[in-house]
């Protein structure tokens, strides 16, 4: 049983019809989330991470959005499900928390009402009093002081960090199997960020849930992830365990991301260039236009097949195919940053 992943995503493609043509935000990616683990999807803004996670339970607005591919949850194909079957899963088995706690709660209702709604939608037999008691317990658990009194407060009476705590309480209301956390700490200041991450970690142990964590912040990744998927322009560049990726980043894009970490590498201005036009992505590797090592083979065909270079560590780069010298990319990164980067991350 433990071999079947909790969530299994296969060739997930999400497109949007726009005036300029079809925009492919997520382009045939696959990933698994295992029981009890935290999978991080990493990539710069606009790389399709959020759309990918919102495609899992089809939160993407359709039209203009169109989700294709298979998503299996506990072996059940949820892409084949009707809207009403899907609603049973949403919130109940797969819960979401979002990037911006300022707007994620409805300002017209008390936070207690909103948590109780999450409970009673999935368990209609629960009385108002029982739902209230459970909501108060949850608020207490996520660290809202004086939870009984604050049940009747409105979202605007809470700070950003507290609102994210309320969102977490709401997500936990039905004891989900999977929590999708889409940049849950990005809008918060650093001290609050650390508190929320610690809270999520505690709750994961307590509730035994899996977490699919989306972030662009590698510092956060190092803190929370078991495994990492690196996304760029709707494609997966590299994936692997957190130690493999931080110690031996194989893809030039991953290496470039690592070098952006404070105190790592020599560059201080990030990765030169910008994301390709999603309406008209380049041939070959999506990262080729910004890659220092790109050769002609990188600019033709499709994104290179992922190649296994370690236990569960896979990379989508031509240099790891037979006939290429992978030390070209490896050497280069060793020469600039890997020696310091590995040392630095190892100490974290």
């Amino acid at each position: 049983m433990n071999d079947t992943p909790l969530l299994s995503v296969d060739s997930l493609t999400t497109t949007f019809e726009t005036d300029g043509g079809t925009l492919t935000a997520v382009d045939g990616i696959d990933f698994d989330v295992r029981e009890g683990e935290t999978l991080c999807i990493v990539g710069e803004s606009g790389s399709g991470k959020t759309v990918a996670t919102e495609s899992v339970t089809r939160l993407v607005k359709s039209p203009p959005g169109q989700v294709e591919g298979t998503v299996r949850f506990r072996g059940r194909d949820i892409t084949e499900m009707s809207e009403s079957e899907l609603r049973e899963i949403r919130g109940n088995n797969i819960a979401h928390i979002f990037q911006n706690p300022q707007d994620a709660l409805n300002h017209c209702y008390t936070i207690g009402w909103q948590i109780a709604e999450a409970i009673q939608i999935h368990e209609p037999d629960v009385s108002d009093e029982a739902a209230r008691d459970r909501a108060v317990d949850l608020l207490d658990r996520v660290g809202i002081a004086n939870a009984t009194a604050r049940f009747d407060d409105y979202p605007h009476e809470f700070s950003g960090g507290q609102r994210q705590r309320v969102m977490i309480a709401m997500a936990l209301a039905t004891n989900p199997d999977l929590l999708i956390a889409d940049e849950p700490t990005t809008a918060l200041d650093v001290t609050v960020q650390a508190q929320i991450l610690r809270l999520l970690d505690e709750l994961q142990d307590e509730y035994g849930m899996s977490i699919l964590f989306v972030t662009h912040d590698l510092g956060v990744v190092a803190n929370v992830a078991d495994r990492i998927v690196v996304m760029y322009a709707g494609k997966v560049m590299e994936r692997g365990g957190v130690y493999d990726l931080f110690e031996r980043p194989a893809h030039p894009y991953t290496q470039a991301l690592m070098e952006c970490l404070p105190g790592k590498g020599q560059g201080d201005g990030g990765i030169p260039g910008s994301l390709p036009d999603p309406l008209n992505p380049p041939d070959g590797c999506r990262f080729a236009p910004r890659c220092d090592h790109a050769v002609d083979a990188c600019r033709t065909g499709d994104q290179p097949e992922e190649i296994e270079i370690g236990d569960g560590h896979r990379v989508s780069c031509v240099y790891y195919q037979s006939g290429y010298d992978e030390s070209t990319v490896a050497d280069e990164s060793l020469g600039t940053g890997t020696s310091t980067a590995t040392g630095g991350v190892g100490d974290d």
Partner: protein
Amino acid sequence: MGLEWYITRRVAWAVIVTFIIVTLTWALLTAAPNPQVSQAATQAALQGGDPAEARERARELRGLDAPLHERYIDYVTGVYTLEWGWSESRNQPVTEALLESLYYTAQYSVPWTILTILLGPLVGIYSAANQYSWKDHVATGFAFFGYAIPNFFFGIILLLVFGVYLDVVPIVYNTDVAVFSLENAIQLVLPVFVLVTGSIGGTMRVSRNESAEYINADFVKTATAKGVSPLRIYARHILRPTMVPLSTTIVAQLLYLFVGSSLLVEVVFGIPGLGQTTFQAVIAQDTSLVLGSTLFFTFIATVGNLLQDVVYTVLDPRISFDER
């Protein structure tokens, strides 16, 4: 503190506003020549009497010889004790005349108001849910048409088509039919329809634009992610915040049409309601009745605005009534 104190203060303001408007109306009409007095003078002159003496007598008879401040104080006391004077043109107390007219006005105003409040947000949210589809365009086109066409003109056209050519509705309003009867319903269909098309346009547009904004709001995504059904999302999560700006529009639209257009509509359809009564009173220079109906409209507008302010604070908890 709290809602009660807020409402108390708002009511106090409402009384002051009413007072100012009553004073202004009274001042304007006092400054205007009184038709009965001039008529008495003309008559006396025609019959060989002394016009100046007749004018004096007429003024004395109506208490117009008293000093201004006395007449003003008398009037204001009357306003608050519901003694609104005697209508010369209708030969009955002003309050009675107004009540009689209100009886007819209410018969089309009540269904009109209810329909506007129900249909406006519904059509607007329907439009927003189907944004930029043909359904949205039809609803929007309908709204713009109703908003743009003058009510009295639309009324005349409808009366011509359905009353004269198709002969399905009576052309002359019949005051003898019972309030809750088919005949009454039939004769009220057109005025109600005309007024609803007029008021629904603005309401529908505001609710469409506001809810279109909320349909893409993060908290709606949260609700979807919780497993809330689309119907419940519209009814609970989108309608509620939409109602906040919408309540302003609804009250403003209804007041505007009630005070302005309903007069023209009443004249077109021959309904002896408040608008028509006011119109006749102005023509007949029936000072007391004009003052009375002005007072009544003022009252309606003030209460409407008061309701709107209260509804605001109830609908959107972020609007505080403590500091105002």
